[in-house]
């Protein structure tokens, strides 16, 4: 009996390994990007960012989020707290502009900059670009809670990608990103991200819950929730600097 069980286990393992070897992981990465890319649709939603730091009160930011993946643009307009109301982030291609209504000036930011003093990066608000930014180094399989996942270790293709190395957990059944460990150039774990409560809109998906744990600064956590998503077409003017200035006048 013991022998039969051992044989069965070995066979299953070999099957899994064979399956893994047969799996086109480049296509998996492309599918992750594709499923979360709202190509011909505009999406807008209310975003709440809760940032927790040890010894400090929770910092809660509410914003209106607009995204147009077809043009590689997004716009985030801060609604609360009152002190930051009217600030905005506008992404046009690879440029991110931050608007400060007090000085009425735009500053140039990058995707690597933190969003509103949280652990989230500006790049966390754009569509996924894993296939374009990373190449596969290692693959594996494990359980994440009750979910069966592929574990992929990725290395950045270029030296301007924010995290030179990432380890991601992708749900096998849905090909959606569930977890990510982001590493520095010196291979130090910097951030652990969790993605959940995916909302399906037509054949696209958007995570309604994202959690970012800073692995360097103990106890610092940022949680982002998306509510009231809408697919109504947005005016072109929303994705312009003039809109941010107008909204604040």
């Amino acid at each position, binding site marked *: 009996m013991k022998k039969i069980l051992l044989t069965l286990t070995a066979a299953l393992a070999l099957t899994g390994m064979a399956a893994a070897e047969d799996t086109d992981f480049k296509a998996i990465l492309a599918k992750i990007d594709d499923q979360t890319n709202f190509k011909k649709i505009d999406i807008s939603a209310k975003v709440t960012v809760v940032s927790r730091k040890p010894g400090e009160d929770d910092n809660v930011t509410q914003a209106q989020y607009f995204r147009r993946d077809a043009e590689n643009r997004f716009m985030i307009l801060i609604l609360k707290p009152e002190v930051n109301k009217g600030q905005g982030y506008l992404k046009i291609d*690879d*440029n991110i502009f931050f608007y400060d209504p007090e000085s009425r000036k735009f500053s*140039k930011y*990058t995707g*690597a900059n933190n969003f509103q003093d949280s652990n989230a990066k500006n790049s966390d608000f754009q569509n996924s670009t894993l296939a374009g930014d990373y190449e596969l180094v290692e693959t594996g399989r494990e359980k994440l809670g009750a979910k069966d996942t592929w574990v992929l270790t990725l290395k*950045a293709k270029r*030296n*301007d*990608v*924010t*995290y*030179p190395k990432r380890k991601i957990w992708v749900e096998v059944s849905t090909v959606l990103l569930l977890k990510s460990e*982001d590493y*520095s*150039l*010196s291979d*130090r774990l*910097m951030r652990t991200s969790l993605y959940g409560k995916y909302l399906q809109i037509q054949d696209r998906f958007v995570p309604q819950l994202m959690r970012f744990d800073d692995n*360097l*600064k*103990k106890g610092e956590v940022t949680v982002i929730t998306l509510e009231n998503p809408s697919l109504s077409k947005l005016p072109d003017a929303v994705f312009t600097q003039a809109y941010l200035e107008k909204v604040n006048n």
Partner: protein
Amino acid sequence: MSVASMALKNLSRQLRRSVLLGGAIAFGILVITVVNGLSGSLITSLEANISNLVPGHIFVRGVEKTEKGRIILSMKDTSVLEKAVTDLKIPFKAIAKTTTVEQAALISDWGTQYQGLTGLDLGPGSYIHDRIVVVKGSLDKFKGSDKILIAEGTATKLDVKLGDRISVQAQTQTGQQNVLDFTVGAIYKDPGLAASLAGAYADSAIVNRLRDMESGEYTNFGIFLEDVSSADLWGAKLYQRLSDQKVPLWPRGSPQDTVKLYRDQKWIGVKYTLFTLNDILSFLKGIFGALNGIAFGILMVLFVVIMVGITNTYRMVVYERTREIGTLRALGMQRAQIRNLFLYEAVFLALAGILSGFVLGVLVLALLSLLDLSSWKDFNILLKDNRLQLIVDMGAFAFDLVVVSALTALAALFPARKAGKLTPAQALRTTN
């Protein structure tokens, strides 16, 4: 007896009035001398302290822009620059080749501090030894190590001591995230308000690793001059020499102005920017200049009030001395001499007031410079050895001397002219 000596004698006759009027002028001069002296002291100390914290009096940086618009600071081959320094015979004390990380996160188990990190040669001949005061640890064996030098305030906020490990997180030149671990090797005396300007220091090799830069590459070429006041002169000469040698250069300006140019323009390859300590301090010097201007403005308002007082007083004086004027006219003194008599009195009064106000002002400054302000830790950057410096602006004094004397003479002019116009008979008939 000359008109001038008569004027002096007349002033002593009305001592109380002269002291009161002269005292008012002295008070105004005292205030402006102290304000000028204080702002001079603050800006001189600030200049000296800032020059200790920033790596040079003249700076050159190489700036590149990637295809995606990212700005990269990089100095690799600087032989042209170093040759220009040699050919111009620039009188320098030290050259500092440093790598600057403008925003690094220093992370301990107890907190995070965001500040600049400078990579440099911390060996025995380094400029840093003369610039900062190490209060704990030493700069020995920093070269080639992972040791880090931090300010007292930073050590307190991070709750770390010598030998503790901290992580330093920063972006590489191309915007990637990187983290390296450092050991607290030394702690230096806090420069107070400028703690964030001073930042942390470490060996250039490890900072270059953090920034993913090549060995030997750096971001700042800094020249420490023997005389910091010549920074603008030598900066201009160096800029001209590099321009003559067709080195691609940005227009001169403050660091803030040139950063705007980087963002707005496109170019290929490395383009160099040159600025001096004065360019960095120009904003602060402007504030102190404005302060001096405001003080002078207030002084002028004060003197208008004093002038009104002087005019009224001299009108009264002329009225009181009408018979005396009549007597002098009868004895042969001319109108102009009568007029000048009163003008001399006013000017001598002003001079006495200005000189005594100046001397009192210098005394006040001297007393203030004796105060030990070591409890003002946050304002160390504005002090020298925890004290104000005794700075007396002789140029400003000479200017005040001329202006205030002229204003006093102007104030006394109308009553003096009126006195001069009195006829002897008219004056002698007066029964006051």
